[in-house]
């Protein structure tokens, strides 16, 4: 309010107006700032208001330049210079920028020729050059400066270097550019040239260093975002169209490809084919732009995954922008992918893909058609083909073979055909050994011997096939043939422990045969020769020799020598029970009547009965050592051993318990096998996995699921313990008799099986099915009719659920056709006895016990009196 009381428009004080205008400039509101500065200068008309107006003009011109409105900037500049000639000095720097950007390079640089040029003006021109000049060739040729002017010289060198590094690879030396000083307004160009050269050289670290050093307000800094994108960095702001074009043309944006591949990897973890194909489309496009050399490989990986995941081919081909190249690399990837699924039904696909790989690789010149590479491939295919369930192989071969009955077209499904080819191309020990193992497990003795013969012919210095053939001949009692192979083995390696033991075993077998043939003179000669071998005096072997001597003297009816030999056997085995068991067993093996009377375990004293498990273990171990595993142990002693072991196993060591468990398994005596495995499992420690395997082997067949689980647990534990021998045994059991190769347990599940089995020490013969494994076993076993039948299950998965009353009555006439029955025994009674006997055999019940149960006490003794053999 004025003194007169008349209201006048309020004018802010000059300082407040200036502050407001400068704030507007700082905030980028240049046009408003300029308008207010004009008003302010009209009112104030002071030097300060003029200076403020000129600053507002400068800011406005600068903003026009930033928007590339060069003509408008130049017009405004000219206007200001005309109206405020005194303020030219204040606008020098912005004037230089305008001159540089509007191609009036001559106008910008001309003042540099003036010797009176003020340092401020020179500085302004140089700043403008640094910030605005991008046409180096124009600068190098600028006529207003003399040719030797440092700016022209530097521009000329930089222009040459810039063209060079963007056109071809150059050495680092060529980018030193000593003629461009660090103080030169063109120094940032030197950094840019070096950065480009380093990028094309592949020295990305050096490239980044140079880019980091380029001042952000210099002209070359405009290339920095594009170059960072080329290096794979993610840009915070979008690139200009020109920058995008440069990135794409010069090498693409690796970060974009990486992001696309990461997105595709993430899409695979979901279960939407649509998402996968969409991500695949993006990744393939990015790859095509950035790394075309990788495109085929990427498409192959995606195609293989889609094939294994069961995607329809059409949409996949569409997403990938065309079909994938089916070369050797693709086939190998496909084969590996089928292997990795862990599904047995994919194994034939893997074998087929490996065959395709073989053909493609030969065609592409990876390796010759008959070289060791192909042999190696056949071996790998054979190891895969072994896993194919037989029923699946039959189904596939039926469908795949063009001409029924010909296996040749799908030979890759048969392990023996693959091993045959592998060993023919590259006959070596490991290949034959693998083949022999497989033949022994899957095909039986005769085919295995044929493999061993081929092995022996191909590698005559290998011991294993000779020993295998020798043992086969010995098992057939073809001792001359066995001795022929032994001689060959001794020629190969006479001091090999297996060969030395083989001689011992063969000679012992020969003596038993002479005893069987009642030729004591030959037997005693051979026994003397055997006794002369140093290895015949190791461990319990002298007792074995003494027992043989006893049997020879029985043939000679030399009572005195018999007594002496028996006494010697008893002395060596430290007891009458083991000595009599050994003599009895050997007599049975030689098909002689037992020359010793074996007391029934019930008639022994309690200490003698308690010692039966130890005696049995010792005799069985000795027989195994001498390869007379066929010696017979009376059932009553096996029963008694099982009973005694259940009550007291503490006196036996782990090895003895293991022998007993194996004896139980070999004698199909489930009770002994189970009791011994329980005693072994209770011991814990490193051997418990072995006892778990013995449990798997010794359980009745009807408990196939429990057996399979135990074997699978052993596979896992052996794998953890790196016990390859045990692993192989368990895997063979799982793959072979149990037909459950696909069953795999986690370490935690294996530990759970072990824990549950340890918690079941008693053999429940009649109804016990063992621990509850429903939580672990979630129908992991193959459910096809063949595998179910092989495991002893009903072939039809629903058959087991049919109630008994709906089952058909068995055809008794058919059942007993060709089987002699007592004349007055009705067939339904015979059927009941047959069923009862089958169940007794399954649970390991002794014949003595079964007969007592069926026919009353004493029935078994009556049968013994009649001389019936058990």
């Amino acid at each position, binding site marked *: 309010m004025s003194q007169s009381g008349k209201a006048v428009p309020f004018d802010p004080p000059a300082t407040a107006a200036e502050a407001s205008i400068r704030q507007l400039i700082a905030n980028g509101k240049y046009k408003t700032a300029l308008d207010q500065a004009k008003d302010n200068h009209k009112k104030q008309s002071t030097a300060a208001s003029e200076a403020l107006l000129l600053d507002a003009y400068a800011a406005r011109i600068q903003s026009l330049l930033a928007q*590339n409105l060069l003509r408008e900037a130049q017009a405004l500049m000219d206007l200001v210079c005309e109206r405020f000639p005194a303020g030219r000095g204040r606008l020098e720097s912005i004037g230089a920028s305008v001159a540089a950007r509007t191609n009036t390079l001559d106008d910008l640089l001309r003042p540099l020729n003036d010797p009176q040029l003020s340092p401020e003006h020179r500085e302004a021109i140089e700043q403008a050059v640094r910030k605005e000049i*991008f*046409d180096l060739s124009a600068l190098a040729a600028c006529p207003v400066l003399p040719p030797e002017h440092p700016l022209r010289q530097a521009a000329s060198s930089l222009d040459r270097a*810039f*063209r060079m590094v*963007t*056109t071809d*690879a150059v050495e680092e030396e060529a980018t030193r550019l000593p003629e461009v000083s660090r103080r030169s307004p063109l120094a940032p160009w030197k950094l840019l040239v070096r950065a480009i050269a380093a*990028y*094309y050289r*592949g020295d990305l670290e050096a490239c980044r260093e140079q880019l980091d050093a380029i001042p952000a307000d210099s*002209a*070359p800094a*405009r*290339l920095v975002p*594009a170059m960072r994108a080329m290096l*794979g960095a993610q840009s915070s702001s979008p690139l*200009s*169209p*020109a920058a995008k*074009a*440069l990135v794409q*043309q*010069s*090498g*693409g944006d*690796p970060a974009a*490809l*990486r992001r696309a*591949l*990461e997105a*595709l*990897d993430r899409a695979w973890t979901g279960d939407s084919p649509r998402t996968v194909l969409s991500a695949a489309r993006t*990744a393939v496009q990015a790859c095509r732009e*950035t*790394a*075309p*050399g*990788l495109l085929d490989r*990427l498409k192959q*990986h*995606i195609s*293989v*995954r889609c094939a*294994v995941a069961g995607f329809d081919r059409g949409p996949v081909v569409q997403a990938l922008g065309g079909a994938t190249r089916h070369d050797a*690399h693709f086939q*190998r*990837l*496909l084969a*590996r*992918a089928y292997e*990795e699924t862990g599904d047995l039904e994919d194994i034939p696909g893997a074998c087929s893909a490996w065959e395709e790989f073989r053909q493609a690789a030969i065609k592409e010149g990876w390796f010759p058609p008959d070289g*060791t*590479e192909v042999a*190696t*491939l056949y*071996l*790998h295919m054979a190891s895969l083909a072994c896993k194919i369930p037989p029923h699946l192989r039959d189904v596939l071969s039926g469908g795949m073979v063009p001409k029924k009955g010909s296996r040749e077209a799908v030979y890759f499904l048969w392990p023996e055909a693959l091993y045959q080819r592998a060993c023919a191309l590259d006959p*070596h020990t*490991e290949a034959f050994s693998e083949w022999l193992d497989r033949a022994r497990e899957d095909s039986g003795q005769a085919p295995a011997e044929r493999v061993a013969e081929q092995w022996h012919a191909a590698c005559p210095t290998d011991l294993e096939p000779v020993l295998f053939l020798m043992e086969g001949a010995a098992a057939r009692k073809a001792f001359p043939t066995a001795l022929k192979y032994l001689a060959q083995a001794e020629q190969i390696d006479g001091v090999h422990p297996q060969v030395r033991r083989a001689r011992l075993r063969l000679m012992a077998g020969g003596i038993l045969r002479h005893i069987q043939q009642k030729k004591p003179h030959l037997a005693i000669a051979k026994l003397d020769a055997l006794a002369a071998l140093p290895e015949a005096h190791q461990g319990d072997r002298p007792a074995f020799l003494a027992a043989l001597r006893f049997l020879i003297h029985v043939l000679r009816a030399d009572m005195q020598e018999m007594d002496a030999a028996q006494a010697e056997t008893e002395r060596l085995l430290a007891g009458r029970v083991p000595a009599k068991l050994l003599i009895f067993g050997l007599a049975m093996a030689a098909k002689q009547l037992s020359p010793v009377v074996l007391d029934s375990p019930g008639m022994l004293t309690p200490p003698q009965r308690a010692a039966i498990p130890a005696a049995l273990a010792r005799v069985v171990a000795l027989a195994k050592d001498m390869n007379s595993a066929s010696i017979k142990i009376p059932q009553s002693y096996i029963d008694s051993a099982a009973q005694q072991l259940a009550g007291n196993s503490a006196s036996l060591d782990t090895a003895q318990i293991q022998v007993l468990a194996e004896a139980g398994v070999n004698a199909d005596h489930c009770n002994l096998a189970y009791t011994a495995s329980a005693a072994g499992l209770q011991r814990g420690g490193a051997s418990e996995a072995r006892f778990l395997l013995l449990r798997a082997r010794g359980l009745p067949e009807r408990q196939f699921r429990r057996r399979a689980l135990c074997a699978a647990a052993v596979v896992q534990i052996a794998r953890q313990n790196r016990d390859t021998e045990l692993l192989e045994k368990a895997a063979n059991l799982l793959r072979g008799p149990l037909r459950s190769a696909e069953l795999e347990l986690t370490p935690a599940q294996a530990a759970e099986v072990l824990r549950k089995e340890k918690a079941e020490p008693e053999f429940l013969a009649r109804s016990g099915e063992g621990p509850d494994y429903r939580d672990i076993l979630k129908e992991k076993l193959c459910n096809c009719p063949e595998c179910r039948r092989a495991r002893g299950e009903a072939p039809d998965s629903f058959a087991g659920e049919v109630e008994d009353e709906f089952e058909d009555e068995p055809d008794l006439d058919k059942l007993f056709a060709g089987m002699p029955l007592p004349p007055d025994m009705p067939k339904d009674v015979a059927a009941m006895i047959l069923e009862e006997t089958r169940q007794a055999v399954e649970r390991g019940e002794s014949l003595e016990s079964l007969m007592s149960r069926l026919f009353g006490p004493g029935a078994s003794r009556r049968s013994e009196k009649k001389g019936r053999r058990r």
Partner: protein
Amino acid sequence: MDALEILGLSDGAGEEEIRAAYLRKVKEHPPERSPEEFEKIRDAYETLRDPRRRMRALLLAGDPTVPLVSLLDGLPPLRRFVGPGPWLEVLKGK
């Protein structure tokens, strides 16, 4: 991970190269400090030393389950010389 990958070697690595890579890796993972890693390195070395095992490892190489992004590992990036034109276009601020 196959033997070559474990030792950080390419397909054509020679015997000396394999041994050098093995020694380098063992230095990085000595048995007393990282026994599991050492065992892998040792297995890989044994595989590559045995001609048959090595051939097998090479023949059966290639893991179809690797993350696809790993295909970029070791891949030399594509760098094309495009001349000064496109670079100058960026400088002009287009």
